[in-house]
């Protein structure tokens, strides 16, 4: 191979010539207007055919959130079946493409890549790290993403639709509720036990804002999801003589905290955020402590609400999964479907049934109503801010369905004065 260098040079030159000849920087579609055939008056895009609209759902069916996610998948499929039976959206049937990322960001990103050309919107991307990986890509592609949870950090994406109030708003309301209704005096102190990370951090920010407004002290205790014994945190709270506790964690932590506080003789109200209560806790030894002192603040109306939307959601779920687990996922999955349906219909009305059209419809919706599943008048036109300041306050109650009895819709003064980035 003495001539290898010359052969190489020739080959390289030829390849370069060929690839340069094949290059082009003028977009043939640039002047041709929108892609996709116009059907009637509606422009269509990815995931839309003459008879079908495909929406995506990236969820976790084999990782830590498998149980709750399965409930949501069942309910979501049932919801769209019902919509299709009533005539569909924009004269088309809606099909759900469910994919399982197993809480792995790498898999979520690749699944998103394979899904993006074939869906008009993503109804859900479950999980913190997974949605954090997908959201920026979806924003670049101008694809609607719903159901990524309630963390404030998701609000910076204009393509994201938050189902109700963010965690900071929930926590600010929790402090307001503790002061106004549960007897925390001015100058008293409130414990905040929170997960390290975006969920707990967001909740802490809201609670700190509210504490400043209401003149109370915050006693913050950071934990991780691996912390299952909260004796140390409970002791610290008792020592600081707190008059109430805000908990931004998971059911395991609620059980531990309520149990330990009760045995230490601290009879103080515990207010948990969205995911902290699970009906199965009522079968555990701490049930009495929970019944006495535990409250839950949720962005979505609890299962036992008598609002027409919630009743419709519950009936639908009961008809498709008579033996399924009950819980806050049932109304949540329903309302996420409802929010997306409204955005799709908005896009249809504006004649742009494309991913971009759905995002535009979302950004124009300044007063969304959902039959009592979420607080009325959700405002998605203010990018970066929570769509509402209203939350649902429930008390743990053995007689209520799914263990939570709705007390009231609540919007406290410090929740109303809270603003992100301000």
């Amino acid at each position: 191979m003495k001539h290898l260098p010359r052969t190489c040079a020739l080959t390289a030159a030829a390849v370069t010539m060929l690839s340069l000849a094949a290059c082009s920087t003028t977009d043939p579609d640039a002047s041709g207007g929108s892609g996709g055939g116009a059907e009637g008056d509606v422009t269509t895009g990815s995931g839309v055919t003459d008879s079908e609209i495909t929406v995506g759902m990236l969820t976790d069916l084999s990782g830590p959130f498998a149980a709750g996610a399965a409930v949501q998948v069942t309910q979501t499929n049932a919801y769209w079946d019902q919509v299709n039976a009533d005539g569909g959206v924009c004269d088309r049937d809606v099909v759900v493409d469910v994919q399982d990322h197993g809480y792995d960001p790498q898999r979520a990103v690749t699944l998103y890549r394979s899904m993006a050309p074939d869906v008009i919107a993503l109804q859900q991307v479950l999980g913190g790290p997974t949605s954090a990986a997908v959201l920026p890509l979806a924003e670049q592609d101008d694809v609607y993403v719903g159901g990524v949870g309630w963390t404030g950090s998701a609000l910076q994406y204009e393509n994201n639709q938050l189902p109700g109030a963010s965690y900071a708003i929930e926590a600010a309301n929790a402090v307001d509720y503790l002061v106004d209704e549960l007897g925390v005096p001015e100058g008293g102190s409130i414990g905040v036990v929170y997960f390290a990370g975006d969920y707990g951090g967001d909740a802490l920010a809201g609670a700190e804002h509210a504490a400043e407004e209401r003149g109370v002290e915050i006693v913050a205790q950071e934990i991780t999801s691996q912390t299952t014994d909260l004796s140390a945190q409970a002791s610290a709270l008792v020592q600081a003589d707190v008059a109430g506790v805000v908990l931004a964690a998971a059911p395991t932590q609620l059980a531990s905290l309520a149990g330990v506080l009760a045995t230490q003789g601290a009879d103080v109200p515990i207010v948990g955020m969205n995911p902290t209560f699970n009906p199965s806790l009522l079968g555990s030894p701490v049930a009495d402590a929970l019944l006495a002192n535990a409250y839950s603040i949720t962005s979505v109306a609890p299962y036992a609400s008598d609002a027409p939307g919630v009743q419709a959601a519950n009936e639908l779920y009961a008809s498709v999964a008579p033996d399924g687990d009950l819980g806050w996922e049932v109304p949540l999955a329903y309302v996420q479907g409802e929010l997306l349906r409204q955005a799709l219909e908005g896009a249809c009305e504006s004649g742009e049934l494309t991913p971009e059209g759905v995002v535009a419809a979302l950004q124009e919706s300044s007063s969304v109503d959902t039959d009592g599943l979420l607080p009325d008048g959700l405002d998605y036109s203010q990018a970066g801010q929570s769509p509402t300041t209203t939350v649902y306050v429930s008390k743990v109650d053995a007689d209520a369905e799914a263990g939570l009895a709705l007390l009231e819709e609540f919007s406290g003064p410090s929740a109303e004065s809270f603003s992100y980035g301000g």
Partner: protein
Amino acid sequence: MSDLLRRLGGLALLVVALALPLVLNDFWLQTGLFVMAAAIGAVGLTLLVGVAGQLSLGHAAFAAIGAYVYAWSTGETTTSVTGGGLPPLLGLALAALVAAGVGAAFSPVAGRLRGIYLGLATLGLVFIVRHLLLNLTDWTGGFTGRSVESFALGGFSFSNRDPDYLAVGGVEFEGLHRLWYLFLLLAVVACWLAGNLRASRTGRAWANVRDSETAAAAMGIGVARAKAAAFVVSSAYAGTAGAMLALAYGRVAPDVFSLTASVDFLVMIVLGGLGSVAGAVVGALFVTALPLVLAEYSSALPFLAAPGSGGLDPSTASRIVYGVAIIAVLVFLRGGLAGAGRRLRHRLGGGGPSGDAGTTDPDTPGPGPAGRTAPASGTTDPSTPDGSHPAAVTHPRSKETTR
């Protein structure tokens, strides 16, 4: 002759890799980016564990350092995070350099510990780095991480913009296509360097230190220096891999660089065959792509249940396949996939390219006696005749790498 064939095979693979973006869809392109990033990390680890014989469970920590150094140095300062605003090429170089620097700082520890003790010490690095990533929020963005500026070179951006539209042969080249070529270049260069390094004086010295520190010292090799050098080089590879992962995601978050990522790197090199560059690449391909491909094509596989319906779903299936593959390789394939490939070539008459990974490994040693390729002893054959090299010590059987 065999060398020529291997070169031709490598060239053919390279041409295929160059042409792939013309036909692949976004899913395969994204998978390819992850594979190439993982491959560079695995090659770095195989130099450290396979060639130099130092067990490391902290590879993900160095990858994290690389990823965040790139993200910070090229990022702009915003309301939530600070950034250096440097050119991306400089950021990429810094990612490798800073990771190498941290590796150098850690090398006194690495020089004093061996085997499982070194493994545990490096395990600590993963947790320290994770703690820092979560708490230095001004630099890292905390739990949610920070976004990553796309790579650009002299006005040409490896993203969907600048130029907004670029087509080759009628196929529109978007960010993923452009990144593919950047990653391919980095991967080929990294593998070529690693192959040469392994066959060089330095690589032989590392292998010698692995097999017997006393013998190595007697041969005039600075044992501490050799160990430190291996750690530094491996860390630089990990840093580059981390920066590439950051580019492939478009965002960095601490969860990507967990202990699981470290273990995955180890699985890659064990599957591929310790010490083999080509093996590391194939291992990276297998470990990275398998779960992604199974998840994507689950609906086409009749024995898999739809996600959520309660049967054997694709995620679980990929984990089972993964586990079975590791056991099968450890039990049946001495020397991993690289060892198997070498024996196969030997049986076929000592010629022919290895087919699957020849492009990236110009220096796989020739077929040795089958008994020499025990899994832990790697593939380095220090007895290659070359008068100027000091590594003439031939052990009938290499000692365990991970004492």
